[in-house]
């Protein structure tokens, strides 16, 4: 069964941020299902829907890899299972 997580990245804008996050996800063998990105007043905001199954990667491995990338390129990156967003705002 595929797991879908939502990756959010926030921080000061610079060149190539989306590419570096996407590269880390590809290296983890996970798939980017959807992405949206904006820059407002120099602040970079990106939301990615990422999916994987157990043969590809794990939550903890993906999370560790993305957090390391975030630290390197100056972004706060969160990786959370989609259910928390589905659950929080609606019944």
């Amino acid at each position, binding site marked *: 069964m595929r797991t879908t997580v*939502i990756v*959010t990245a*926030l921080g000061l804008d610079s060149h190539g941020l989306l590419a570096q996050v996407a590269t880390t996800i590809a290296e983890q063998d996970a798939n980017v299902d959807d992405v*949206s990105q904006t820059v407002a007043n120099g602040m970079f*905001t990106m*939301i990615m829907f990422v999916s994987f199954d157990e043969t590809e990667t794990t*939550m*903890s491995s993906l*999370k560790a890899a993305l957090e390391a990338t975030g630290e390197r390129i100056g972004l*706060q990156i*969160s*990786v*959370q*299972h*989609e*259910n*928390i*967003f*589905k*659950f*929080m*705002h*609606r*019944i």
Partner: protein
Amino acid sequence: MVFITEQEILETVGMIRSENLDVRAVTMGISLFDCSDRDPHRAAERIHAKIVQRAGRLVKVADEIEEKYGIPIVNKRVSLTPIAQVVGGDDPAAYVEVAHALDAAAEEIGIDFVGGFSAMVQKGFTRGDAALIEAIPEAISSTQRVCSSVNVASTRAGINMDAVVRMADVIKALSRLTAANDSIGCAKLVVFCNVPEDNPFMAGALHGSGEPEVSVNVAISGPGVVRNVVEHHPEASLIELADLIKRTTFKITRVGELVAREASQMLHAQMGIIDLSLAPTPAVGDSIAEILMSMGLEQVGAPGTTAALALLNDAVKKGGTMATSSTGGLSGAFIPVSEDAAMAKAAADGALSIEKLEAMTAVCSLGLDMIVVPGDIPSNSLAGMIADVMAIGMINSKTTGARLIPAYGKKVGEWVKLGGLFGEAPVMAVSQAGNDAFLRRGGRIPAPLQSLTN
């Protein structure tokens, strides 16, 4: 397919990253009725074994959920059938031995606290109740993770004033025995009226006799999230403010519901309750007092504080109850002085008195909670304070509790550092007027008219 908007995603992430949103506690309730034994030593062994067997995976499961959803789960705890109902006899030393077994089990499975070193004495004492209460000072002062509570009153039974007086002596003894650590033992002991049987918060958590074999109860948190919403709407009318708070606590509670469902499934336990309490921590921004200040009070304790708290507490419940059908526990805003930095500051500045806190108790959750009083307070003054809080609970058919800390050797105005989530607070002044003749009468304050509901 549930559609999630970008705004909702960023709001959730912001709540966790910037506003201290967390799940305050996942508490596993375990029935100990099958651990009873005539031999207290054997009972202690069986209790230890059952806690380790049933809650052995609690911390691991909570950590997995934390990683999966990116929501911190601050405390992992176990609540138990009140020990006085499980272990019989009249030897206090046997109860101390049981407390050590609880502590050892808690350490073994890596949880923060274990609650249920408790007795229900609202109508009178069994031999076991009396022995357990006598054992509390030694049991709590010689363990790290054991929490104790004693229910001395209820709307149905009235107030057992003999128990109130006895508990004041127990608190004083515990204060003495833990004097080296600013009397911290008293932070692990609550005196209750109408104790809930499914409360996930310490120090008062226990697993009541009507509860299932094993359950998972979840305590939400989120004062920082609520404060942020209030602060960003300075022009909102009170009706609009109540709506904003309801919307926010709905979201916070949904997270609690998700965690409770998942944790109970993973632990093969029945899903218990979601406790809708807003619980502060000493961290800046994680404060009930700051919510009230954002509503427009200069400091907590200002005239209007009780009204503001009533609005907050009611809106929290209304928002939360839409989000889950499993409400329970204490479910109300907490006002612990030492655990809420802005509350402690208001006390130190003279803006907040014990009498005002007592009034606030009438409209919110726990009661006189984490209040530091002079170490040399007469036992009867302490008993009178407890009785007053119990009376508010009894008459209003609600839970109230007293967690009072006579700081050994300290005077009014001196600060006491309890550490960690217990925080720090100034010693507060208590009326010096006497009450000896009233307390000497003994016996029970009868159940009020409100008890006759059938």
